[in-house]
């Protein structure tokens, strides 16, 4: 059993769609509705769910699939295919390589940085953290605690300092000290705030002028987020060159189904997922695991 499935089976053991469909020998008329509703309940979204079901119906006709099991397998394959396209490795090119973390408020940017830093630390890679969230009260204190845990250097400005310059300084520091990786935090911002999104573009611009390479801009997305996740991804991708998604809080009972729409419409892959509170609970995304876990979704009511 994969880790993600384990986390999810920990949640609740109500009967899943999968097991329910397996029980049915024949394909009932309810199958299509149930499959669509299962997807909707996983936050896949009405539009994407419908198109998935339409496609499945076509396949059923073409390939003469008649049993619920066959169809479920086929649906899973389709879902996996959507997510399978792109690389999950985090790019470490550059001297230093710079990873900038962006996202709306409260999704877990700072925590994800802490987890990634301690993972790198365990690999023997030294990192510099940049406290680019100069807006939220005590954000750099939060990062400071992580920095101490994994023995890394934290570069911070004063409260209300220009985040671009804090991150730039961190890059220059890493460069001169030959530290290969900079993890840059930014303040959480709602994607609808134009001025804050402009600030983000500026951060990217300024960071690119430093001695290193902006290797990743990671959009941190809360798995409990519903359909608004797509808007978030669109707006952030419009402001900066988002290279991947970190899907956090998958250890709750939410499924993060919005990533299908994001992958299909914007083509941004999920690279890492957060499945727990411990520092090792940030793991590389595996589409197969993710889709299987989706089907273990407890059916309500």
């Amino acid at each position, binding site marked *: 059993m994969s880790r993600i499935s384990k986390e999810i089976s*920990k*949640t*609740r053991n109500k009967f899943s769609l999968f097991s329910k469909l397996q029980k049915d020998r024949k394909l009932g008329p309810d199958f299509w509705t149930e499959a669509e*509703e299962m997807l*909707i*309940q*996983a*936050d896949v*979204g*009405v*539009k994407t769910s419908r198109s998935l079901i339409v496609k499945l119906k076509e396949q059923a006709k073409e390939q003469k699939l008649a049993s619920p099991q066959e169809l479920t397998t086929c649906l899973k394959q389709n879902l996996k295919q959507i997510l399978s396209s792109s690389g999950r490795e985090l790019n470490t090119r550059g001297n230093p390589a710079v990873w900038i973390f962006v996202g*709306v*408020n*409260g*999704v*877990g940017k700072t925590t994800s940085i802490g987890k990634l830093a301690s993972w790198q630390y365990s690999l023997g890679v030294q990192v510099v953290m940049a406290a680019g969230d100069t*807006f*939220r*009260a*005590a*954000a750099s*204190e*939060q990062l*400071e*605690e*992580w920095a101490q845990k994994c023995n890394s250097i934290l570069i911070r400005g004063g409260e209300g300092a220009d985040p671009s310059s804090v991150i730039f300084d961190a890059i220059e520091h890493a460069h001169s000290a030959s530290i290969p990786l900079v993890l840059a935090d930014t303040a959480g911002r*709602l*994607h*609808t*705030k134009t001025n804050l999104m402009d600030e983000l573009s500026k951060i990217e611009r300024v960071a690119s002028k430093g001695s290193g390479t902006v290797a990743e801009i990671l959009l941190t997305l*809360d798995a*409990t*987020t*519903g*359909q*608004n*996740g*797509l*808007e978030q991804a669109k707006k952030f991708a419009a402001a900066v060159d988002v290279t991947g998604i970190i899907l956090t*809080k998958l*250890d*709750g*009972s*939410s*499924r993060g*189904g*919005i990533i299908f729409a994001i992958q299909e419409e914007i083509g941004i892959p999920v690279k890492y997922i957060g499945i727990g509170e411990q520092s090792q609970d940030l793991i590389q995304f595996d589409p197969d695991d993710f889709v299987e876990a989706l089907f273990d979704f407890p059916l*309500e*009511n």
Partner: protein
Amino acid sequence: MFDTLTDRLGDIFGRLRSKGRLSESQINEVLDEVRMALLEADVNLQVAKDFQESVFSRCVETEIHKALNPAQQVIKSVNEELVSILGGEALAISFAEKPPTIVLLAGLQGVGKTTNAVKLARWFKSQGRNPLLVGADLQRPAAVEQLRTLAESIDVPVFSQESDPVTVVSQGIEKARKTGRDVVICDTAGRLTIDEEMMQEIRQISDAIEPHYTFLVVDAMTGQDAVNIAESFHNQLALDAMIITKLDGDARGGAALSAKSVVGKPIAFASIGENIEDFEQFHPDRLASRILGMGDVLTLIEKAEDAFDEEEAKRATQKLISGEFTLEDFLDQMQQLKKMGPLENIMGMMPDLPPGADPSDVDESRLVRMEAIITSMTVAERHSPVIIDGSRRSRIAKGSGTSVQEVSSLLKQFKEIKRMMKGSAKPRKKSKRKGANKRKKSKPSSRVKQKSHLETPDSGTTGEFDLSDFGTFSN
């Protein structure tokens, strides 16, 4: 994504307009679209289904299919139902006889508990209270630090210490008693609903302090899981109300409806921005429109209902048909239109504007000038504009701060409207009345045409979407 419901309903309305009556399956067709919109707004699937069912039976019971403009009536019922579910009973905060009044905040990680604890403290302060904030989130690094910094900005003291959360809150309340603080707001650690241990901990906190109010903080961006979240917290804590956060984004906030349906407790506050003062008491009607994603159409329905007195509209129509329509009536109609808000907005609200019509083309100032011109006339002039000769024109122009040309053009326009109004009365029996035979064909500008519909709400001859559709609600 945001306009889809408005668009789709526009399509349905278009098809149904000619029919006038709705069959049950047509009601369901409209409601299917509504359910889609609810799901797209992240309303929980089961909640959306139940909602659809209850609105359907309401529509059938009230024989909505026999009403005028039934499709819009369906939408109106949907909105009313939504507002009533979201609103329900408001939370009236009463204060403990023996202070302090204790408020406990709970919620998942990252929903904004700490920020909202401070926002709430500010709100209590504005109510003339002396709050104390207690930082019992000892999990997240620097959470207490964040609380202190924010609280400092609104000059509210914070109590916290390094021990366990239960001790912190108990001591905090003790401290409030000693220092004469009459409200205590306890910030707790964010937790996962499925984390038994953490849920138990907040229950212990709750048991230890027996809060007067327990608020669940809900993120407006939450998806389908909102139901489970609210349910789990409610099972543990017996919630009193909810605070919905991040409403300043563009999430449609269906989570609020889901949570409300499960918990049945009011949404007391809404957080609408990053600053401490961006916090207000909750307005269910605003969120209802937002969840439906068709706020503008609803607003328009409501505004038209508010602004247009049906009886008055009928009187005006009668007058028009009988040729008694005066500049005074014209002024009345203009003022009614203005009551609905800026013209540009009203135009923007219309689901299907004639092609090429651009709301921003509407020149509001012209309406104001027209009004000024008419009010500068004497009563006699308003009743029989024919008496307005050259010298009267220049007096009116001076009095209204306009030019003689403008006065002339208004008079010309008025004449045209009158002529056209008689024209539109043709297909009805009433057209046999005197004056109808004087009708001449005229091709009015689209703007005049629109206005003409306003004045003949029951003319029944309109092929396009027009405001008169909204002017005839029977209730």
